[in-house]
């Protein structure tokens, strides 16, 4: 009997190892390891070959020859285009995050304060659009924003404007698209934070004479800090590298890093330069990603 229990324990221990190892190995192989290869190729030289870059390590005269090439990074500092693209992307991400928060916070607040039975249907309504094709919803904005599109037609018909507004292919269109696409990512973490708040705190503050707005700023808002951080990171970080929305809604003069990387890779076929661009973007995003990860870990531990 004791032996049996021993065996059972052993096989459980064994099973545990597998449960940990399989997803870890998969993610290391297909998520973490690729970054090392990006690092390697960022220091290679572009070549007209398949694959289009030089080998970092080669055998020449029976000796290993380590060939590290810094040219890609030097090139990035020489052309203003790249610095502009990084700064534009960061600005775009910051402004879009702000507007997502501005619209998303009251929405999340409204859902969290609704009757429990209606909360789930309201959440569903927020999520439903994000389950239909993202690409097609961005495409819909082209039809709305262009100079003879729905918005201009309505505004001209009602007499608000006399001439069509040029919105498509400007930064405004890009902002509209990004806020539109990323709004649910802001609302969800805010909602799951706000819904956990203890309402008696608000009541207590009001019994003590606080006005509605006062108790919001002094109680609800500080308590929702975690939700704000999570939502903002879920919007800010991916938007820095956003490609599809600036490509479809922004004009040729909206230069963001996602677009530049795409062009270097697909149009110029300069894989090493694209890798260098990705590497720098990754370095910039390291801090917010670390922040996000720490935060996620806390969430994971907290309500256990």
């Amino acid at each position, binding site marked *: 009997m004791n032996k049996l229990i021993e065996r059972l324990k052993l096989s459980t221990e064994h*099973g*545990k190892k597998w449960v*940990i190892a*399989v*997803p*870890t190995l*998969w*993610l290391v192989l*297909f*998520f973490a390891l*690729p970054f090392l*290869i*990006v690092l390697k190729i960022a220091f290679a030289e572009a070549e007209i070959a398949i*694959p289009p870059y030089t080998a970092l390590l080669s055998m020449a005269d029976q000796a290993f020859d380590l060939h590290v090439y810094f040219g890609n990074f030097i090139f990035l500092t020489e052309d203003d285009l790249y610095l502009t693209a990084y700064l534009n992307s960061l600005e775009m991400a910051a402004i879009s995050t702000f507007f997502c928060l501005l*619209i*998303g916070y*009251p*929405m999340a607040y*409204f*859902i969290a*304060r609704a009757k429990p039975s209606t909360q789930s249907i309201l959440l*569903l309504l*927020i999520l439903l*659009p994000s*389950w*239909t*094709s993202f*690409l*097609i*919803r961005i*495409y*819909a904005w082209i*039809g709305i924003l*262009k100079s003879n*599109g*729905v918005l201009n037609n309505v505004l001209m018909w009602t007499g608000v404007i006399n001439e069509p507004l040029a919105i498509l292919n400007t930064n405004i269109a890009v902002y509209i698209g990004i806020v*539109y696409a990323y*709004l649910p990512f802001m*609302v969800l973490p805010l909602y799951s934070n706000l819904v956990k708040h203890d309402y008696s705190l608000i009541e207590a503050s009001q019994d003590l004479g606080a006005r*509605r707005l006062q108790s919001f700023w002094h109680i609800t808002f500080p308590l929702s800090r975690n939700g704000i951080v999570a939502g903002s990171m*879920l919007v800010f970080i991916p938007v820095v*590298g956003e*490609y599809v929305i600036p490509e*479809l809604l922004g004009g040729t003069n909206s230069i963001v890093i*996602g677009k530049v*990387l795409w062009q270097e*890779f697909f149009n110029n076929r300069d894989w090493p330069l*694209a*890798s260098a661009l*990705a590497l720098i973007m*990754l370095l910039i*995003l390291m801090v*917010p*990603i670390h922040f996000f*990860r720490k935060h*996620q*870990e806390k969430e*994971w531990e907290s*309500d*256990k």
Partner: protein
Amino acid sequence: MKTSIRFSAVMFWFGMAFLYLPMLSLIIYSFNESRLVTVWAGWSTKWYGELFRDEGLMSAVWRSLEVAFWSANTAVLLGIMASVALTRFGKFRGRSMLHSLVAAPLVMPDVIIGLSLLLLFVSMTDVIGWPEQRGLMTIWVAHATFCTAYATVVISSRLKELDRSYLEAAMDLGATPLKAFIQVTLPIIMPALVSAWLLSFTLSLDDVVIASFVSGPGSTTLPIEVFSSVRLGVSPKINALATIIILIVSLVTLAVWWLSRRKLQREKLAK
């Protein structure tokens, strides 16, 4: 009290209008007779016919569904394991690494994931000869990878709040941990598994950037096809396709919502 509620209500319905207006305009213009998307020329369903006759687009649809199906299966399987490890095993070596590996893909920009995975596949072909060429297989690997992160978030948040006493009862009655997990835990977390699967499926069905990097000749998925046709110009066929997608998603959502509500009501009655 009133003013703040009213403000959030106004913002909520404004946000809703913002989210649904584009979808409404897609649906309306899919029934437009005219080729020009902005000029109304009367009701017609001819673009739906055109859509189904477009063989390139239709085969892309099937390809995408296939990739999404397998990506979702893989992601849910890996997600279950990762969630169990993170919520059930306490402290173990590599726990914090697994945390990072699950959290980072949630926010990592698509262009970085796509580029780095492509470079990995190219190097692998060089070193071990697999994958021989890039295609649906490489898209499946890429999608399964980032969907695993989302699936893990959904599943682990359910596993966390699960009452452990059921599991302990089963094990007291002699079930092995694996048997207890399959017969007790899995049925309870089934709704979370379904929503993790659906989320992975739609994420895979939606991805254009990563798929563009890792796809090969002959493996054009629906988003890649749509993206190239949108860049060439607006086509009413895309509106028809959008309307069908919106219809299917709404019906599935409604069905899931209705089923879960009925289950909830039954549980209430049972109590």
